[in-house]
């Protein structure tokens, strides 16, 4: 680590890059939820892209965590959200498959 790098600024740069990636994935998932044509493609955008954005933001905040216990708690929040997203995707997809909603017209 004697490359003339300041470790603090390197960690901050990694945090900024990960936060930017998280915002990009959140925006992509939101645009998909607003613009995709039917329920199942919207569900695909919701449960994949947005939870990936939350994961990037969580990893960015792990680098800034004040101590180890708070970092572990942030990881637990992310794991609970991913588990919930997987379950909710299955339940919503099956519910929408039975209901056969009317397809909205493309503008």
């Amino acid at each position, binding site marked *: 680590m004697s490359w003339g790098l300041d470790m603090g600024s390197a960690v901050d740069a990694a945090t900024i890059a990960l936060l930017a990636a998280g*915002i990009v994935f*959140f925006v992509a998932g939101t645009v998909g*939820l607003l613009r995709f044509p039917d329920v199942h493609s919207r569900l695909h955008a*919701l449960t994949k892209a947005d939870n990936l954005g939350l994961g990037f*933001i969580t990893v960015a905040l792990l680098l800034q965590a*004040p101590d180890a216990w708070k970092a572990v708690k942030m990881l637990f929040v992310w794991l609970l959200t991913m588990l919930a*997203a997987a379950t909710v995707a299955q339940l*919503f997809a*099956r519910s929408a498959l039975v*209901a056969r909603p009317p397809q909205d017209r493309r503008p």
Partner: protein
Amino acid sequence: MTDLLFMTAAALLLTVAASLVRVLRGPTRPDRMMGAQLAATAGVAILLLLSVAAGSPAILDVALVLALLAAFAAVAFVKAASPDGAGDPEEETP
């Protein structure tokens, strides 16, 4: 760095506002519930950012409770929309 975390949280608040558009306009009831789920996911991210930026560890517990309540709300929605209210969305209607 603290200002950057607050700015990221503000950008995610715009995500929450966009999800409310889907809650308002979604043609089916699962669409509206998916908008609420996106608001919950973005809300968890905002609370994690605020916890680190403001240096208050209690907000982590708020984020944990919000994630748990969003999961329960989705399960309760699917259970209420099933044919006899018992929870299986694909069972035969009696």
